[in-house]
């Protein structure tokens, strides 16, 4: 249990992100919440690949021996770039909403019912 602290930190990050997305009324805060969940999931993937006492999966400098798992790192790389792409798109939309409606309040949208 105590050794699973990184996993529990991931759950805490997901919870904080959801908290921001549910209870914060500012669109930029909602987007920051998504970024936090994204970071949490990335952390989760890398933590899954960790093997204690092993080396980075690169032969150039590592002494031959056990290595940490390479696949989760590759997945995380993909996921980081996806994260920044999504973030840029959402922020530009938020800017346009501010331009159209003069507010970033989620409660004052025009699409209702």
């Amino acid at each position, binding site marked *: 249990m105590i050794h699973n602290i990184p996993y529990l930190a991931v759950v805490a990050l997901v919870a904080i992100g959801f908290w921001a997305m549910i209870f914060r009324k500012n669109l930029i805060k909602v987007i920051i919440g998504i970024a936090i969940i994204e970071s949490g999931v990335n952390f989760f993937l890398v933590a899954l690949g960790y093997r204690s006492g092993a080396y980075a999966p690169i032969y*150039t400098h590592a002494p031959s021996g056990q290595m940490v798992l390479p696949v989760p790192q590759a997945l995380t790389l993909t996921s980081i770039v996806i994260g920044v792409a999504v973030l*840029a798109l959402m922020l530009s939309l938020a800017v346009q909403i501010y331009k159209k409606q003069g507010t970033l309040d989620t409660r004052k949208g025009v699409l209702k019912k």
Partner: protein
Amino acid sequence: MSEMSKIVRSISNLLLPFILIYGFYIILHGHLTPGGGFQGGAVVASGLVMVLVAYGSERFASWVKEKHLSVLESIGALGFISLAFLGLSTAFFYNFLAGKGGLFGDIPPEGSNPGALNTAGTLPLMNLAVGLKVIAGLASIVLVMGLASHYFKQGGENDT
């Protein structure tokens, strides 16, 4: 984004070459040391972002045009997918250069070794293509948003 003070500008001038060299090193040595196209592209793009912040987006836009960046990005993406297509005699994404000798075709010795640039088949080429694409993509995102903020500050109601 408007221009910043002279101190900031000279420091960014000083730092830019180092960041660029570091970024291109990461891209080129992606198959040997930690790094690769994405990481190096992100580093180079962050150097460009520094210049954009220091000099302001209008001045940056007079050096680097958004349409040129989009052509560069397109070329990078096309290069990447073409390298994948070239393996189609066996399968999509087949690494047709690895282990065949010639350019990038050497096989590194088993186990821990410093490695040679001349290995890994299509990987260095893919790294280059992806690096180009990521540099152009991230830079154009920041450039477009910076220009938009410039026009917003001017406060035109009728222009988007």
